[in-house]
């Protein structure tokens, strides 16, 4: 599904990604862990198409299509979804209106008519139930005055509504208490199937108790330095990131 080869990217002339290789197939969950500044968020931004980052080398293909040629909205139409580490507040537009607009823009791309209001409401109710979201939330302004946990839940709610092929969850666990974490993880697990894939970017192992990855990759200084199964995450947690940095410098 996703194939990243020797990806190098920089921002303001500073190289952040220094040759990433990663293959994600349908049905898989990958976790990317790493210390602060290792390039985790840059990687997710580059996949989603944030224009501030300049890709200087390498390639990203998604279902055999060159992703780097596509605008962010086109990547979304192809089925890529980024759950933001810091979701943006948009005063003046309600959650329901925002979701309706994005859903219909994606449908327009697929030559489908706008979604019927009754169908939209039914779908929203179903996904709200899944994420234990209360009524009244739909008419609130997008992320405005939301708590950290509400913002993250809103990201997963959008993911549930848009039904992407590849979801990248950037530090979705930060700012969540344990109950909210369980709800979010349950949502992600329920939406998981053999047709889609998930990349979970996290600092801590905790989230991976609830969203169990097939593969764990350790990112350090812009490169994936170690890959393994879920046990690698446990080992990381135990030994700390210093373990990797030391091992690298040996």
């Amino acid at each position, binding site marked *: 599904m996703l194939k990243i080869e020797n990806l190098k990217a920089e921002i303001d002339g500073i190289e952040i990604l220094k040759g990433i290789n990663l293959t994600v197939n349908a049905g898989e969950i990958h976790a990317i862990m790493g210390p602060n500044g290792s390039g985790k968020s840059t990687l997710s931004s580059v996949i*989603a*198409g*944030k*224009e501030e980052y300049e890709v200087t080398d390498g390639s990203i293909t998604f279902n055999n299509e060159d992703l780097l040629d596509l*605008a*962010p*909205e086109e*990547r*979304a*139409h192809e089925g890529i*979804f*980024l759950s*933001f580490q810091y*979701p*943006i507040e*948009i*005063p*003046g*537009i*309600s959650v*329901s*209106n*925002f979701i*309706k*607009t*994005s859903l219909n*823009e*994606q449908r327009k*791309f697929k030559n489908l008519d706008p979604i019927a*209001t009754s169908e*939209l*409401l039914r779908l929203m109710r179903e996904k709200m139930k899944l994420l234990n979201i209360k009524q009244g939330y*739909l*008419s609130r302004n997008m992320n405005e005055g939301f708590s950290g946990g509400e913002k993250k839940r809103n990201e997963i709610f*959008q993911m549930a509504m*848009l039904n992407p092929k590849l979801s990248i969850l950037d530090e979705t666990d930060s700012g969540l208490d344990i109950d909210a974490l369980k709800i979010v993880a349950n949502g992600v697990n329920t939406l998981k199937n053999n047709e889609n894939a998930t990349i979970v970017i996290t600092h801590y192992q905790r989230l991976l108790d609830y969203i169990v990855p097939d593969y764990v990759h350790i990112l350090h200084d812009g490169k994936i330095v170690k890959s393994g199964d879920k046990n690698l995450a446990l080992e990381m947690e135990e030994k700390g990131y210093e373990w990797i940095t030391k091992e690298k410098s040996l």
Partner: protein
Amino acid sequence: MSLVKSLESYVAKNNLSPEKKKLFASFINQGFPTIKDEEWKYTPLKKIISLDYNINNQTDQTLDATFIKNNSLGLKHKIVFCNGNLLEAPNISGLTVSDFSDFECRINDTNTLLNEALAKNGYTISVESNVTIEEPVEILFFNTLENSFSQYRSIISVMKNSSIKFVEKIYDLSNSNSLVNNFTKILCEENSNIEFNKIQNNTPNSKLIDCMNIFQERNSTALVNTFIFGGDFVRNNLNFEQNGKNCESNMNGISLIDRDQLADNHTFVDHKNAHCRSNEMYKGIYLDKSKGVFNGKIMVRKDAQKIDAFQSNNNLLLSDLSSIDSKPQLEIYADDVKCSHGCTIGQLDQEALFYMRSRGIGVEEAKAVLTYAFTSEVIDKVSISELQKLIRDVLAKKLNVDLDFSLV
């Protein structure tokens, strides 16, 4: 021939009353304001008044009902003028409408003076005491005469304990260099309530100078919403005078203009009595080479204690060549008041744009949604759903996107 010359020649040929002659003479003496005048510093009239206008614009043109409907909000109650002639007035119990427009008003600037001297067209509306008119009344001024200079002059009296809502549209059907000098006086008696909405979405070369003076008695509430979506030139003077305790003056606006259009909102709230409020929220969006001007003056007189006055003016400059001159002007002579003002000028938030694009919303649509979101607070101030819909539709059209901004 310049406008002043055309006016002089018109006056020479017509038999004016001595009072009108006197008024016209003072107008000539003062002349149109120039950019040396502080109130007109950013809004040059020079080009506009140098054009050739037809002054004598009386005709008996009529418009058919379907045409009127297509050029209006389609509300049940309408007052329709064509080239100054009253074509239609609503039949509402407690409301009287006539085309009498010869009344006196405090003269506060040159354009008002000219209006008082020579205006022939307009209406008088009177809402009887203790009457609540739920359904809004649409006021339509159409002009079909090419390159015309028209002056409308109207007075609205809302008597004790009454309430009414209006939507006014001044529209040029000749699609030429027309200029309108519109003056409206509103008298709000005790416990009255008025909502007055202005749609200023005129043809590309039309020009409008609009002055509205509102006089409020105690416990009255007045709301004026101004929506500028087009026309070559728009200047609004909106003045509130609070003559009793516990008055509320509210004014809001959205300006969304493009090409080399100019939109100027000058507001003035005169807090002359204690325990009164004013709320002001103007949002401007400027595309291409367009130019916005905002001047919000709030005066709190010596004995006007316990005043709450809020003013905000937020602007989006969506092109490198657009501009806004924004000036809050607070003069406070009382010591127990709450006054605040805020002004922002900026561009669309790039992070928010990326966020929306990552959800599959195209870049133009994302910009349009953010721009709509920027204005939505003001749209919420309108209580007439047909008008809210019109504003959303015009916004989408002006921003060139096929989006329905209405709520799910």
